[in-house]
């Protein structure tokens, strides 16, 4: 196991910044247990993923306080919406006095990515599940972090234990998110402007690097396509540009890489 300590820890809280490549799951397949998988997930999630959630949700917490939304509501929004773009849309439109229906539509549009994410992810959790009803609960824990982190680790996690990995990883992310929301709300983020900017910037840079590490080849092509056409399409239409990016970029990647690669993953 590799232990990397950060040299420039951006916040005062000491986080175990440990990044373990998922391929280095200790032991052979026979020694991998539900417990060892959970522990691995906690380790994987306790580094950058937790730090990113902590800092980005700090931003949401601060915004919620400025908007005079109670801390309890802010926490419920973090756990219940569990998607930062939608949370930000909710608070910003709330402050501007927008009507409830318009807010709900905007929040929904900002979080529409959860549909294709769930379709492409939940089947991986369904294997051997006696009550499919659990999927409706498990999907609530899904975020870019737990989605990308799980997809990264799943090739080395036995199929029957993938739910254990996902719940442990996503649960840790949720705790970091709730902690961040609280810290931001209580005004813990009294940092120099440049540091605050850097912490906000941490979010997209982290996701860019994590996604770039996907071993899934059609996914890599889709990432490139989406990154190239995303900003222009968003500029043309902020509401639908993102969904269009997904459909157009994804279809391009699907056609370019050929359907022969279907099912080659995980």
């Amino acid at each position, binding site marked *: 196991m590799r232990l990397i300590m*950060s040299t*420039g820890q*951006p916040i005062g809280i000491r986080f175990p910044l440990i*990044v373990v490549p998922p391929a280095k799951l200790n032991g052979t397949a026979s020694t991998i247990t539900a417990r060892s998988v959970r522990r691995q997930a906690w380790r994987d999630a306790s*580094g950058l993923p937790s730090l990113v959630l902590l800092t980005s949700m700090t931003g949401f917490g601060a915004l919620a306080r400025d908007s*005079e939304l109670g801390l309890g*509501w802010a926490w*419920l*929004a973090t756990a*219940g*919406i*569990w998607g930062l773009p939608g949370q*930000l849309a909710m608070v910003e439109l709330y*402050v501007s006095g927008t*009507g409830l229906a318009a807010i*709900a*539509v905007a*929040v929904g549009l900002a979080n529409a*990515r959860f549909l*294709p994410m*769930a*379709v*492409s992810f*939940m*089947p991986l959790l369904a294997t051997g599940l006696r009550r499919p009803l659990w999927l409706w609960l498990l999907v609530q824990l899904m975020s870019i972090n737990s989605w*990308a982190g799980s997809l990264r680790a799943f090739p080395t996690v036995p199929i029957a234990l993938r739910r254990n990995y996902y719940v442990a990883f996503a649960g840790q992310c949720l705790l970091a998110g709730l902690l961040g929301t609280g810290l931001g709300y209580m005004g813990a983020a009294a940092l*120099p402007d*440049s*540091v605050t*900017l*850097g912490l*906000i*910037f*941490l979010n*997209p840079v982290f*996701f*860019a*690097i*994590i*996604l770039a*590490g996907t071993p*899934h080849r*059609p*996914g890599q092509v889709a*990432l490139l396509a*989406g*990154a190239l*056409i*995303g*900003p222009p399409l968003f*500029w043309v239409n902020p509401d639908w540009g*993102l969904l269009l990016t*997904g*459909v157009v970029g*994804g279809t*391009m990647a699907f056609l370019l890489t050929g*359907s022969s*690669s*279907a*099912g080659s993953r995980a």
Partner: protein
Amino acid sequence: MTTASTAPWLLVTASIAATYVWRGAGVYCATRIDPQGRLFAWVTCVSYALLAGLIARMIVLPVGTLSSTPLIDRLLAVGLSFAVYYFGRRRPLRAVLSGVVVFILISALRDAMG
């Protein structure tokens, strides 16, 4: 001060519902789709493209505080992260921190110079 007229509980409940609609629809479709099939492969591609678009937007056309920083700073920093990632040994932590630290330094420098 806020000019909001909506009750907080209604606001949060409606927002949660508006998000869960997508999650739930995803589960509904997921239980009716073959993970080995072409439709699944296509939706996976759509997810990746959508996330890449979202992240590219956050870097190129950010909303909020980040939009006050010059585009060139953001592109330089994220370019550095990718360089460290691909030319180093694909260590996410190292890659992300180098980009973010350089971004903080550039921002501090710009602040100092007024």
